[in-house]
């Protein structure tokens, strides 16, 4: 920078040079952008705009909240904890692992009939499916049917990557810990007829469409599923290999919907996952009429050791999903607060505007 001594050089950033040189004006362009005069809308938060906003928010939120709350309250839901930690529980016997397979039965009563489609969930508590190491312990390539990943699973799957030198399919802690209790539901039609009527539980249609059809795929190839999974071994905890999860081909292997549902890890340590679907049969009869039921549990899944809990949930559904009073209450609360705030601000504004007005007049 120091070296501009020829007077005719235009010094970078120097004053205009060389009289007699082309008299090029250095006047900046007169564009709205450069002169910072872009046409603009300048909203100002005045009492006239802010206060109505508060009232409007209040007026909109409260009805929505009430709507959601009512909808949510109309949903039928029953939750049965079958962990069996209490000695009185029928499943208490299954806590000690010497009885295999352990089957226990829990009776319950539906006070009101469940209309429409009914969904059966299993719920787990204190189960950290969202633990970082748990969440990443999977190989999506493998689950997507990539043949290379099938025989050579991702390192993320450790320590459930290989078992006795054979690659595990599906690998990883998530798959390994798949929920494997079997739940069956029976309706005790009436007291006179002791033979319970089993409720038909659909195994398919419980996973996301994208998961079932895009994300999860069986390894490609001809032949049976068993052949396609050749060279792999089952996860350590599983009683049988992945190609024997279901009898039907379109629900077997990686595209087994129970597996898919399980693999979609929960966000919170207490969660529920769709287990079975109870489809509405006809319009005349409720899907689950009021009455006595019993739940038949094949108790395999150990949660007792880490204070986990297991639940079975039956629920109907509304336009906005399952039973969840939170949104309704929240909307009503926020609506009311907003309304109240509007009133408070109105008062403050009224009170202070006058006093500060006089002050300003004096200042100007």
């Amino acid at each position: 920078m120091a070296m501009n001594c020829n007077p005719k050089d235009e010094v970078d950033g120097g004053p205009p040079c060389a009289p007699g040189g082309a008299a090029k004006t250095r006047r900046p362009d007169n564009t709205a952008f450069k002169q910072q005069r872009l046409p603009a809308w300048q909203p100002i938060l005045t009492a006239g705009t802010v206060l109505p906003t508060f009232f409007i928010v209040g007026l909109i939120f409260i009805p929505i909240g009430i709507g959601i709350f009512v909808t949510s309250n109309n949903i039928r839901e029953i939750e049965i904890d079958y962990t069996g930690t209490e000695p009185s529980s029928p499943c208490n016997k299954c806590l000690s692992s010497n009885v295999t397979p352990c089957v226990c039965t829990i009776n319950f009563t539906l006070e009101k009939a469940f209309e429409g489609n009914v969904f059966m969930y299993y719920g787990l508590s204190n189960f950290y499916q969202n633990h970082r190491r748990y969440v990443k312990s999977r190989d999506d390539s493998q689950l997507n049917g990539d043949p290379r990943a099938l025989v050579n699973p991702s390192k993320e799957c450790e320590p459930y990557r290989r078992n006795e030198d054979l690659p595990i399919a599906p690998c990883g802690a998530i798959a390994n810990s798949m929920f494997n209790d079997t739940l069956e539901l029976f309706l005790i039609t009436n007291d006179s007829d002791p033979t319970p009527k089993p409720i038909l539980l659909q195994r398919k249609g419980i996973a996301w469409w994208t998961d079932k059809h895009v994300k999860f795929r069986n390894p490609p190839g001809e032949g049976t599923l068993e052949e396609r999974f050749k060279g792999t071994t089952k996860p350590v905890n599983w009683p049988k290999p992945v190609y024997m999860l279901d009898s039907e081909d379109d629900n077997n292997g990686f595209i087994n919907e129970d597996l898919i549902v399980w693999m979609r890890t929960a966000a919170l340590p207490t969660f529920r996952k769709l287990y079975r679907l109870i489809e509405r049969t006809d319009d005349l009869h409720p899907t689950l009429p009021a009455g006595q039921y019993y739940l038949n549990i094949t108790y395999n899944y150990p949660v007792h050791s880490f204070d986990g809990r297991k639940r079975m949930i039956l629920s109907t559904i509304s336009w906005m999903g399952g039973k969840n009073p939170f949104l309704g209450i929240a909307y009503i609360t926020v609506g009311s607060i907003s309304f109240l705030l509007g009133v408070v601000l109105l008062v403050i504004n009224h009170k202070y505007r006058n006093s500060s007005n006089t002050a300003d007049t004096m200042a100007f």
Partner: protein
Amino acid sequence: SENERLLQANNRELTSSFGYPDNAIKTSKYNALNFLPMNLFEQFRKLANAYFLVLVFLQMIPQISSLASYTTVIPLMVVLSITAVKDAIDDLKRHQSDHQVNNRSVLLLVDGRMEEDKWMNVQVGDIIKLKNNECVTADILLLSSSESHGLAYVETAELDGETNLKVKQALSVTNDLEDNLELLSTFDGEIKCDLPNNKLDRFTGILTYKGQKYLLDHDKLLLRGCILRNTDWCYGVVVYTGPDTKLMQNSGKAIFKRTQMDQLLNVLVLWIFLLLAIMCFIIAVGHGIWQSKIGYYFQIFLPWENYVSSSVVSATLIYWSYIIILNTMVPISLYISVEIIRLGNSFYINWDRKMFYAPKNTPAQARTTTLNEELGQVKYVFSDKTGTLTQNIMTFNRCSINGKVYGMHNCHKRLIKKYKKVDFSYNKLANPNFLFYDNTLVEAVKSGDKWVHLFFLSLSLCHTVMSEEKVEGELVYQAQSPDEGALVTAARNFGFVFRARTSDTITMVEMGETKVYQLLAILDFSNVRKRMSVIVRTPEDQLLLFCKGADTIICELLHSSCKDLTNVTMEHLDDFATEGLRTLMVAYRELDVTFFQAWRHKHSVAYLSLEDRENKLSIVYEEIEKDLMLLGATAIEDKLQDAVPETIITLSKAKIKIWVLTGDKQETAVNIAYSCSIFEEDMDGVFMVQGNNYETICQELRTARAKMKPESVLESDPTNICLPMKPKIVPDEVPKGRYGLVINGYSLACALEENLELELLQVACMCKGVICCRMTPLQKAQVVQLVKRYKKVVTLAIGDGANDVSMIKAAHIGVGISGLEGMQAMLNSDFSFSQFHYLQRLLLVHGRWTYNRMCKFLSFFFYKNFVFTLVHFWYAFYNGFSAQTVYDSWFIACYNLIYTSLPVLGLSLFDQDVNETWSLCFPELYEAGQHNLSFNKKKFMDCVLHGIYSSFVLFFVPMWTICSSECSDGKDISDFQTFSLIVQTSLMCVVTMQIALKTTYWTVMSHLLIWGSLGFYFCMLFLLYSDGLCLMFPNIFQFLGVARNSLSETQLWLSVVLSTVLCVIPTVGYIFIKPLLFPVSVDKVGARQLPRIRHCMKYPVPPPKRARLKRPSFRRSAYAFSHQQGFGAIITSGKMTKLRSKKKDKLLRKSHLMLVSHHRFQASSQTSNVEGVERDSVGLPPARGRVSSCPARLPGLSGSFQGVTCEALVGRGGSRGERA
């Protein structure tokens, strides 16, 4: 030897053995090969970059890596590459300029012939030839020149910014070589001289030639960077080359200024680190507990890693994992965004048409792009006077001749715009630029009024101006002071044209008739005499003495018969002074021949006396300068720049204090202070600090303080005396009333030395305006530093000359006026423009906007990062503190860099809370910045709290929404990926809404950027979660189909709306209620008083007319002289008159030179005795005519502070004579 440089002319073999560098220079930092490593190294030296590098390495460790490394690598790469590209472009420019400079051609003496070669090939010892108007190639020893006495004139503007010519002189022995190439190529002088150093005014050496030794000093050295002027050619031997030249030795690294915001940011970043560490610690403890209570038993499903032996080990690892996850608390793009904002706002300054000065074709320039927001916080403005407040153009405005006033009052001129200019067409030699508005004077001249004629004759004879007539009829005057130039020009236009001078004649064209006056003596100006006289013999053989000088002095010397005229003229002078004009009295005397002969004899005796010559001379002068006949008085306007008073009033309304630091005299400075409204007539008092010892100054200051604020004297008395207890910050005190302070340089130096600085500062800061006169450049810087040190405020220094460079560099912000005094100030400034009044626009409009934008940007930037990051903290409590992220890692990678960067940049480039007109109409708005109200530690804490609240909402609302909830088709939505999506989407909505609320100026760009970014987020969502991408890389893009499944859910949208409203409502309420409960000026004027402002805009209140009171007469003696010894001696010595009379007797020449150098010695010692500091302090270039006694001061070049110090010390010590 070790401390000397040895060289021989025309002997490359010898000099090359010493290994001197060649003349190539290199200012570039990198080359193609080392660019990458060196640039990366430079960048990683920045704390933030290094931090992220460490993070990247942390992420490489699988045991603690909680995030895919691309989440940090990608942003870091982007940030690094942007900076690298910028550096590369900068360096490329430097390469080009180096290349251009190195390849300039120069004439080199090779084998008895002149050959053209490139600059870079010049070696030490080479003899080169320079032609007129050429750049000096290297530091060369002048051998010979085309001018008489081996003189060469150089312009040093590049070095010190002074545009006046300096004279260099060759040794007579070398000058005899002339341009004889044979002689030159056989010249084998050996030179021993100093090692390369950066002292521009120091050079000593010995030339050994033909067995004789000659002493060399810096008079004989042409420095690289100078330009040869008025000299047809010269030859020189190269002494220093390339990096050894004084110019390059001086071009050290520029002082790197950092803004207060930068410092605040660094503190805040440290706070964030601390917060980060605390949070990670809490989480690590939580993890330890969780691991032993639950994790240990959960091993049936999730076994511990084999390297984890206990929960403590696990917790330690988790600590680092969370350091990685929460790293976004320290926003990686913070620094680069800040830079971008500053750069953008600098462009606005460059682009501003209202700061473009058409007459000079100069737009405003932000030369430093890193200080912009500080422009919105300025509290103290330190201004130079000459050339900054004033134009440094003197115009002959009015005069009083023989009791009659001519010329128009300034105000009248303004009122009657069509007032006729005087037509000077009768005079062919008139200067067309000269304007005068009173025809009666011309008529008086034409009618041949004797007094008028004498008056103008006196003006055209009694001066030391040089004239140059390159084209017939086009006279160019070289005046020592602009005042003098103005007077001679005025005389010229009225028909008394000073055309040429020799050492003993003055050629005049009087009303078209050429006359030659014999110049018999010049009784030169000095600060004591305050007058100058000439004695001439007219063509009519009359002996006349003409005298002009300060009225107070001349009055004493007048003949008693002029009494009545004197009284009338004094009244006129009072009038002129009220208008702020600079006045001089003009008188003459007819001399008797015999009396003159006798006097002349005495004069030459005194002139040749060796002891106490100056004193003897002035006694002789006094003998003849008496019984003068008064001719009249002149009034010269020191023209203020446009709109200076208005600007200063506006700035004062913005509570900006303006101090004028000038090298000028007290009277002039005070006069200017009044005329530009720094002082006002109705002020309660103006204090003068003029003492020159501790007691007096202390007393003066105490008195001032006692008057302004009586109670402050008592309580702070002890604190000022006991120095070890110096307070860090001197608090602001509010005086009762408005006062002004005037302090001169000598008292200031005294006050600073004698530990009165706090006392001084206290007094000065209570005053409305402060004028410091007679300041050296160093003192200017000291004043700035004094304020900087004890007041936590932003200072701005504005100036135009080389003597302002030190203060421009010292202040937080330096503004250079690209004016008349060269460009040194401009080159060292951070901002530059041509007119002082652009300052109000720079500060009140650009500064304020940038500051507000920066503050909005920072508070929003921190907020958005806190919200983003703290969600992880809440989530930790629900995932066993396992370092699981809430978001998709792609979202983490893109959030700062893509999704949210553009809206916030848009905000900080386009937002205007109040448009430019209001900003200028209501300068009070500026105060928010001065007190740092818009972004400070408290505001930062607000951001933190706001961020915590928002992140709380953003985590828990989605959590409770999806917690044991299902889709409308009964399927899962409580899975992690859906949860991520809801939180991400809510976060984007909240952030967008918040920025929308912050935006007060919605341009098309704002809409585009704000809504565009939100739209872009959704597009990216569908892209990143699309089947194609996810199937290609299933392990990288894992969120297949989540967007499709979840975004169709009503619940999810209800949750997003709920979070958004919950986050936004408090903000709206706060924005609304804040001005009601805690009004600050911005809100008062901005939001709620909108109608009032609009009203004001529509019907502007006319500015109150300031009543012009008659000023007390003490200010009148603003005589129009610069404060230097005149040219007289040189004129009479004949040196400057370019007589190309080489045939003149050499002996005579030598005697002349002796005389001159002798005179120089005397003059210097005299000056230092009389008023030591003075000459340095002058706002004008130092001693123009004196061949070289004034060393070129180079405050402009860095590292030369030292030089200035020496200068000032020497000056004060009175030992200046030693150097001559």
